[in-house]
């Protein structure tokens, strides 16, 4: 109890409240503008936090995370273009409602749905993460390696376009972690005498190059002014009492869906909003009305994508495994601030672990207030001149990369990784497996090598331990199941 009151005292300090307000508002703005996202905002702001102490930094970054997911609905509803992939399904009915002149109703529903999705899911995360961390304390490197492999493979299987491409992206991520001093024996790998490479590739320039500038450069190259939509004017927020009453089961179902999908490694809000929308449509008595502009189609994705934030926090806090791409940036941020993530977070960094959870709850409340008060300003967010907004982002990217270690070498590495990002985009190599493999690569290698050194049975030790064996089997099955199913469907005789 004393830790919680200490955390509350810290967070309720006016300066920290302002920081949460600023972070969540910034997150909403980045989440709202198509092409940008909360994840990008976390990346841009990460270097700014290097001069802050870790508690202040993580408070700020968590606020951006919560705001980023919530803001995505604004672009979806007002422009018909999702602010970020977590609000893709909101576009179907949200924009249709705008065209029917019901944009205030859609936005009000989305704002309340954001809140209803976030707060309970973070409360669940605060209980579940603690229990999971306690269990994880009892496991060894074998289980951690298997869990990491399982997480990466699950993300690879999401590569709808091509499984091989997912594997290539993951291999590239692993390869990037192989540069520098190796764990266990401290051997030097691929540094060729360069002292800047000894500590490995820095997360800031790798992520900024591959994710941030790649998006900006390609967006600029493809810019078509004729497709620029102008948002409708918006009046004040209206509490959706009637809509809430009619959608209570839809909200509960979508919340559980979002929480579960968020919990699975790598499958965050991007997937949960579409799944929840499909479930809402299937469960509806009037499925034909979906897509024509009904509020049910706004509640389902918005509750689900926000519930995913709590779900993603569970493996993030308990195991040090990111639940989605944004949490992988957050995990990187924690590592850069010298925090050792994993199951010991709740014991070694008890204040910080509780701070993350409570900051999310306060940020969720702040986002609700900001969105209620600021709703008439939503069209203005979307109307920020492109040339000024993107210029500022590009500058923040480059200066952020420099300031992470105050080295020009990082800026030049960033230029190299921008090219890698474009090549990955060209080949449609998915970014999520790369991000997860890059964040987890060192952990995978360390635990694999520790597991082998600690046992006399070599690789068999990973199969003789039940938890690690089950996790590895799940990973292998996830990888081969699409091919098995395809083979079965081909072999199955068809009766006419």
């Amino acid at each position: 109890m004393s830790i919680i009151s200490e955390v509350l005292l810290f967070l309720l300090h006016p300066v920290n409240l302002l920081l949460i307000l600023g972070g969540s508002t910034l997150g909403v703005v980045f989440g709202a503008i198509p092409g940008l996202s909360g994840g990008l905002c976390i990346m841009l702001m990460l270097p700014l936090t290097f001069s802050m102490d870790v508690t202040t930094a993580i408070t700020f970054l968590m606020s951006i995370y919560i705001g980023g997911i919530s803001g995505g609905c604004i672009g979806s509803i007002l422009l018909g273009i999702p602010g970020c992939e977590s609000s893709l399904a909101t576009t179907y009915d949200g924009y249709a409602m705008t065209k029917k002149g019901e944009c205030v109703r859609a936005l009000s529903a989305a704002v309340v749905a954001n809140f209803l999705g976030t707060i309970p899911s973070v409360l669940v995360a605060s209980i579940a993460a603690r229990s999971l961390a306690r269990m994880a304390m009892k496991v060894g490197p074998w289980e951690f390696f298997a869990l990491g492999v399982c997480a990466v493979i699950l993300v690879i299987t999401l590569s709808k376009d091509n499984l091989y491409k997912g594997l290539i992206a993951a291999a590239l991520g692993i390869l990037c972690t192989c540069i520098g001093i190796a764990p266990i024996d401290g051997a030097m790998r691929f540094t060729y005498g360069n002292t800047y490479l000894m500590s490995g590739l820095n997360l800031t320039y790798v992520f900024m190059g591959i994710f941030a500038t790649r998006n900006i450069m390609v967006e600029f190259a493809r810019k078509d002014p004729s497709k620029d939509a102008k948002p409708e004017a918006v009046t004040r927020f209206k509490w959706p009492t009637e809509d809430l009453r009619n959608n209570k089961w839809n909200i509960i179902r979508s919340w559980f869906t979002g929480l579960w999908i968020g919990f699975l490694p790598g499958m965050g809000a991007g997937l949960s909003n579409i799944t929840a929308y499909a479930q809402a449509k299937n469960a509806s008595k009037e499925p034909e009305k979906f897509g024509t502009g009904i509020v049910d189609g706004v509640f389902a994705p918005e509750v689900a994508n926000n519930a995913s934030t709590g779900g993603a926090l569970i493996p993030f806090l308990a195991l040090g495994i990111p639940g989605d791409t944004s949490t992988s940036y957050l995990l990187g941020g924690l590592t850069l601030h010298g925090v050792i993530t994993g199951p010991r977070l709740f014991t070694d960094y008890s204040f910080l672990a509780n701070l993350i959870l409570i900051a999310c709850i306060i940020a969720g409340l702040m986002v609700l207030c900001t969105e209620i008060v600021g709703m008439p300003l939503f069209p203005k967010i979307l109307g920020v001149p492109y040339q000024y907004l993107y210029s500022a982002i590009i500058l923040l990217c480059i200066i952020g990369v420099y300031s992470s270690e105050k080295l020009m070498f990082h800026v030049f590495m960033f230029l190299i990784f921008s090219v890698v990002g474009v090549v990955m985009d060209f080949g449609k190599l998915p970014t999520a497996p790369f991000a997860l493999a890059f964040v987890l690569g060192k952990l995978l290698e360390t635990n694999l090598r520790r597991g082998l050194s600690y046992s006399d049975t070599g690789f068999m030790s990973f199969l003789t331990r039940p938890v690690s064996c089950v996790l590895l089997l799940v990973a292998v099955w996830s990888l081969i199941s699409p091919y098995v199913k395809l083979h079965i469907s081909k072999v199955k005789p068809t009766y006419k």
Partner: protein
Amino acid sequence: MKKFFIKDRIIGMGSVLLGILVCFLSRSIPESTVRGDIGSKAFPVFAAALLIICGGLLLLQKSGEKKERYLLLYQWKRLLTMYFSYVFFAVALWLCGFVISTPVFLFWLTCLLGKAAEKKPDFVKNAIFSILLTALIFYLYQQVLHISLPKGIIFG
């Protein structure tokens, strides 16, 4: 006749070549002396093997999809212009430092981005924005966050 998806072939070929290169370079990594340890060579070799296998499979994979262009010629030009703007800015930062190179870079960037958005370039507005943003970032980093910005090798 088999249809091959050209982009996949390029990525497949690139992966195979990168995998072979990594395998070759991994030879110089020393063996581990820790008992039972697979050594520091194993992980890069594993990643390289994955690249070679998946790249090879991607090369051989049959695709019924139509060839689609990643970017049109004018879009490639835009992409390269933007990229080389970054490169010039990085070099200018290294040589002249933040205070001199940033307003120039920002002015160029606002005009470039404005052109893509088919906005009539407002040079005065762009110049004011460039100077103000430079001053704001300088103040934020140097005074508030106490993070030093590049001074440049000429003036530093």
